[in-house]
């Protein structure tokens, strides 16, 4: 018969009080577990979006704004990069250590979801969270030669009702600033499977379509846009770049006014859209490629760098950050680091505050265990004296009380972990909807293992006082006292 069993029998003796104190510990631990798992999911969710590429390259400006806008589609772009810079980087004229470059163009929404202009390579070439490839739940990726094709993220598709074949019109602007709806319709070619990344909540269109609707818009309005988006697209380029590109803007205005914006980058004329679109694309072909590229802009670039040699990402970032490319200065950031920094600065502090509160609740529950055992000591004096009379020494009876405290704490802790994970599992459908991350009953965070030594230490601390009382019990006096 072990001392654990002897302690367990003592707990059974006071089943109701023991259960209540253990349950209070369970509630505290459940709260700790819930906070840990919840923030773990949040952290994972944030990091997932920043995986699959090595660098984000954007105009000089706020690093965090660049990452928030490019990775999470939050806020406005820092500015714009000339399209030619994208092409030069992609084709290795700026840096030979670049494996792939995916452009990202912001500035439109549909039913509250960001509409991102990009190339099909974003889903063909990039991966997410641990190297997983993007998969389509329905339909397929859009094709480069189809400028008005689109792909919807899982949540965006579900909430906006978009499915393959559906058409939609993007609205210029973002969020509150969204003002004017474009006439041109994009057609959905595919819906992505959930990824647990911000991609789920976005709609991706062929970047060429973006340029075409702007060309048409410019054609009709001949200049400045009422919603200010165009202003943002152009004036957010740093002043030096604006000056150097000002002639390009003029040329863009002139071209738009004289018959539409050309797009020499379209490999083939669009074939599956309206006659208007088709003729517009044909007009674009009439223009010179380089001239067109001078007027196009992108919000940011997602850059993939070869894995070897180690440190190449930092080298490429350094070179981009410290160079001037045809008058253009850019910033290149490693998204994971910025996300980690953002998490630590904002979410991490909230997690710490909630964890401290939850741990305080656990400590209070621990004090409850102490009070429960302490209150039982007067009625247990005889029991302890009997053990002593049977040969148990002072340390042994002290150990029995400490073990009792530890059992109550660990029992409550185990129940709390089940409750916490049960709660998270019950909330799993909502968490999956918000973050795309499927949370299971046994999705543990390693840090949860600290609860075991933590609870043992707490139980030892709170059990010490009653254990000392047991230690000091006068056997003869307790045995001769009336039972």
């Amino acid at each position: 018969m072990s001392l654990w069993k002897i302690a367990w029998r003592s707990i059974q003796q006071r089943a109701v009080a023991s259960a209540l104190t253990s349950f209070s510990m369970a509630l505290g631990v459940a709260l700790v577990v819930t906070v840990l798992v919840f923030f773990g999911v949040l952290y994972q969710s944030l990091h997932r979006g920043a995986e699959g590429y090595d660098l984000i390259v954007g105009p000089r400006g706020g690093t965090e704004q660049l990452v928030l806008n490019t990775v999470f589609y939050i806020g406005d772009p820092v500015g714009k990069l000339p399209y030619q810079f994208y092409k030069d980087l992609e084709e290795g004229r700026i840096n030979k250590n670049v494996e792939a470059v995916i452009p990202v163009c912001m500035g439109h929404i549909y039913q509250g979801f960001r509409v991102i202009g990009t190339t099909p390579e974003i889903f063909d070439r990039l991966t997410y969270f641990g190297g997983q490839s993007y998969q389509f739940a329905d339909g397929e990726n859009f094709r480069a030669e189809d400028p008005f094709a689109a792909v919807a993220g899982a949540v965006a598709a579900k909430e906006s009702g978009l499915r393959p074949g559906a058409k939609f019109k993007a609205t210029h602007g973002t969020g509150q600033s969204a003002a004017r709806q474009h006439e041109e319709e994009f057609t959905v070619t595919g819906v992505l499977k959930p990824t647990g990344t911000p991609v789920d909540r976005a709609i991706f269109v062929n970047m060429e379509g973006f340029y075409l609707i702007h060309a048409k818009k410019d054609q009709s309005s001949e200049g400045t846009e009422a919603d200010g988006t165009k202003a943002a697209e152009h004036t957010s380029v740093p002043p030096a770049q604006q000056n150097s590109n000002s002639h390009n803007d003029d040329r863009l205005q002139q071209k738009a006014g004289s018959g539409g914006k050309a797009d020499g980058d379209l490999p083939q004329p669009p074939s599956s859209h309206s006659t208007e679109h088709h003729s517009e694309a044909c007009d674009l072909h009439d223009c010179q490629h380089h001239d067109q590229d001078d007027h196009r802009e992108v919000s940011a670039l997602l850059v993939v760098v070869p894995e070897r040699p180690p440190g190449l990402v930092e080298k490429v970032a350094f070179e981009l950050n410290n160079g001037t490319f045809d008058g253009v200065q850019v910033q290149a950031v490693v998204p994971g680091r910025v996300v980690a920094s953002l998490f630590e600065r904002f979410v991490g502090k909230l997690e710490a505050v909630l964890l401290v509160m939850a741990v305080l609740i656990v400590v209070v529950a621990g004090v409850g265990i102490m009070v429960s055992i302490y209150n039982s000591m007067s009625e247990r004096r005889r029991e302890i004296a009997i053990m002593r009379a049977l040969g148990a020494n002072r340390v042994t009876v002290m150990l029995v009380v400490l073990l009792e405290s530890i059992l109550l704490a660990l029992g409550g802790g185990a129940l709390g972990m089940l409750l916490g994970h049960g709660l998270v599992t019950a909330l799993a459908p909502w968490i999956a909807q918000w973050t795309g991350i499927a949370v299971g009953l046994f999705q543990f965070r390693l840090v949860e293992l600290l609860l075991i030594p933590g609870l043992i230490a707490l139980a030892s601390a709170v059990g010490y006082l009653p254990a000392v009382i047991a230690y000091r019990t006068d056997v003869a006096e307790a045995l001769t006292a009336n039972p």
Partner: protein
Amino acid sequence: MLELIDVRKSFQQPNGNQLPVLDIAEFRAAAGEQVVLVGRSGSGKTTLLHVIAGISRADSGRVKIDGWDITLLSEAERDRFRAEHIGYVFQTFNLLPGFSALENVLVAMRFARGHVDKARARQLLKRVGLEHRMSHKPPMLSVGEQQRVAVARALANKPRLLLADEPTASVDAANQQAILDLIRETCQEENVTLLLVTHAPEVAQQFPRIEYLEKFNRAVMKL
């Protein structure tokens, strides 16, 4: 086997004065001997057993058991000595209420040796007639059955000395003789020295050796 020489024990009263309870010049019991100590209430019977068991420490004098002077042992050593060499049957049984009959016997083994001998525990409970009540906890046992468990527990570690403090005082009349016979027979079977205290003459007269505390406890004689 048991030897007490000039053993004194007193307790401090609330007014600060010392109250002598034991003052025994000499007392001896041979191995396997069965001795009954008779004394009225307050004559120091329980205190004497506590001193012999090492539960209380004598103020002075020597208490030797099998050649070991337990007054020279530390408290922890006395605890261990008591667990290994002395069995104790209390007037109020003092069973652990949360433990079954079998566990009450096993727990005594655990404290004495660090391990248990379930076969012996079962055998002892069978010997005291409780083979069908081993898994029952004390509240589910009759008073007589509880005292039987207490006897089995006292013999669990094969003690050399069994101290019995009015073991039949809390037992109904029908069970008194049975308990007494059980204690004496098992002690005889296991060659255990028995020192039983009682205030009941009908119990005392069954023993071959009767000692009256009033006659050899000078603390009582002075009262």
